[in-house]
């Protein structure tokens, strides 16, 4: 009989209150955001008209513009993405080792490495590009460093997480054989994170191809420069060609990355 008297509740009163408070905060945020954005009704009403007008100007795309101008810019974009990804890994791997609590047992060092990784992520690649254009002047070098510095945080965070999830047993076993720390990392930790490492590398390269396409808008080289020029001169048929090129490249990169990942993991 006693069993029937007991009452089961999924949430404690405190949990119920917290959930209600979260829902309330969501609604407040939404209302606040809509009021703040201040959509101008006149612009909203003729938007479809403007859009049709733009598409008409874009059609047919000026495919003759592809070679040589767009092609060369595209190759530069691919170089920016690949080199930027490579540089990112050179910095991100040591930072990930320092950030992983099971690899580096000093909380102060972990926190410092995490701070660097967060700093890298908190700045958008366009902002990094503006900074590096100021340092190196306009061109592909600025783009490469922008891509690299934005990627360090992303890559470092994911690698650090992969490191923290590895099984400690094999590391302990290698330590017990008298192996130095470097050997333990190489033969105990690396095999465990290798799939994650290649997965992150390919994924970031894929993202960087897309990101480096827009970096040209702030003068950091690549296909974005040609896009910016075409827009500034209202050559919408050329803009269409460039947008199509970017689309094709992103799709091809996606296909390559998916195939490679299936092979590597």
């Amino acid at each position, binding site marked *: 009989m006693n069993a029937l008297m007991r009452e089961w509740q999924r949430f404690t009163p405190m949990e119920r209150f917290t959930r209600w408070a979260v829902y309330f905060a969501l609604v407040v945020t939404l209302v606040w955001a809509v009021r703040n954005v201040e959509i101008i009704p006149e612009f909203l009403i003729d938007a479809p008209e403007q859009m049709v007008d733009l598409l008409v100007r874009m059609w047919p795309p000026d495919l003759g513009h592809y070679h040589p101008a767009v092609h060369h810019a595209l190759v530069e974009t691919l170089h920016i993405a690949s080199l930027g990804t490579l540089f990112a890994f050179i910095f991100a791997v040591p930072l990930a080792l320092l950030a992983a609590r099971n690899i580096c047992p000093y909380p102060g060092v972990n926190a410092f490495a995490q701070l660097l990784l967060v700093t890298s992520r908190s700045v958008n690649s366009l902002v990094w590009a503006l900074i590096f254009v100021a340092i190196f002047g306009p061109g592909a070098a600025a783009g490469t460093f922008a891509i690299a510095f934005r990627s360090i945080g992303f890559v470092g965070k994911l690698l650090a997480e992969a490191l923290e999830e590895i*099984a400690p*047993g*094999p590391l*302990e*076993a*290698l*330590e*017990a*054989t*008298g*192996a*130095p720390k*470097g*050997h*333990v990392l*190489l*033969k*105990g930790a690396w*095999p*465990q994170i*290798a799939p994650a490492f290649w997965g992150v590398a390919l994924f970031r390269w894929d993202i960087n191809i897309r990101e480096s396409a827009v970096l040209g808008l702030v003068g950091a080289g690549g296909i974005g420069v040609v896009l910016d020029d075409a827009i500034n001169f209202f050559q919408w048929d050329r803009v269409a060609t460039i947008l199509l090129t970017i689309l094709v490249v992103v799709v091809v990169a996606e296909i390559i990355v998916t195939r490679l990942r299936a092979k590597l993991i």
Partner: protein
Amino acid sequence: MQAGAMQGLIIKGLVKEYVPGKPVLRGINLAIAPQGITAVIGPSGTGKSTLLRCINRLVEPTAGEILLNGQDLVPLRGRGLRMARRRIGMVFQEYNLVERLTVMENVLSGRLGYVSLWQAWMRRYPDADIARAFSLLDAVGLPEQATRRADALSGGQRQRVGIARALMQQPELLLADEPTSSLDPRTAVEIMELMTGLSTSAGVPLVVNIHNVDLARRFAQRIIGMAGGEIVFDGPPEALQSEHLRQIYGGEDWL
């Protein structure tokens, strides 16, 4: 003191406290001859694992001395500690193989204390090590498995690789922490036969933590019973009586 007395493993006043004031090991004194099989039995949580892990310093002792063939292991740091660990092989309950490496590389890992980082990276182990690894794989009954990945093996096969890795070190002492607890009864017997046989023929003393009292009786020449962080029985298997088991494990309904 005669020279022979310094040989083997001698533990004096070993104390381990994970939390200050709550010792898991309460002053262990133990001398293990330079050969022979010693089984440590006792309930879970009584410090068997801690005792073994203090010997190769995977766990840091709070107080006491651990002498292996005359050298105190407790004060060792850094390089000195690694040199000492090379002399002690260990077999684990969960095998602790590197799953994504091949059987051969797992066995060769037993030599990581001897090769340079570059050699390990390029997989350029000395020819003598590779020959030894092959003969150990034959000895543990896995002659055709060298190029298989460790995660493709069964539990019993993995433990065989674990044993080969430990013997690859050419250790002066072999430690086994519950080596059969994850295995079925038949495989457990096979693994114990293999491990005791190989350590005996290599002349390496073996200290094995084991839950199973029957296996301890069957394979060990000496049994150490632990309860509450202390040694409460120490003698040959024939001397282990029900009253001792009651003292070690408590209660009597299970006997």
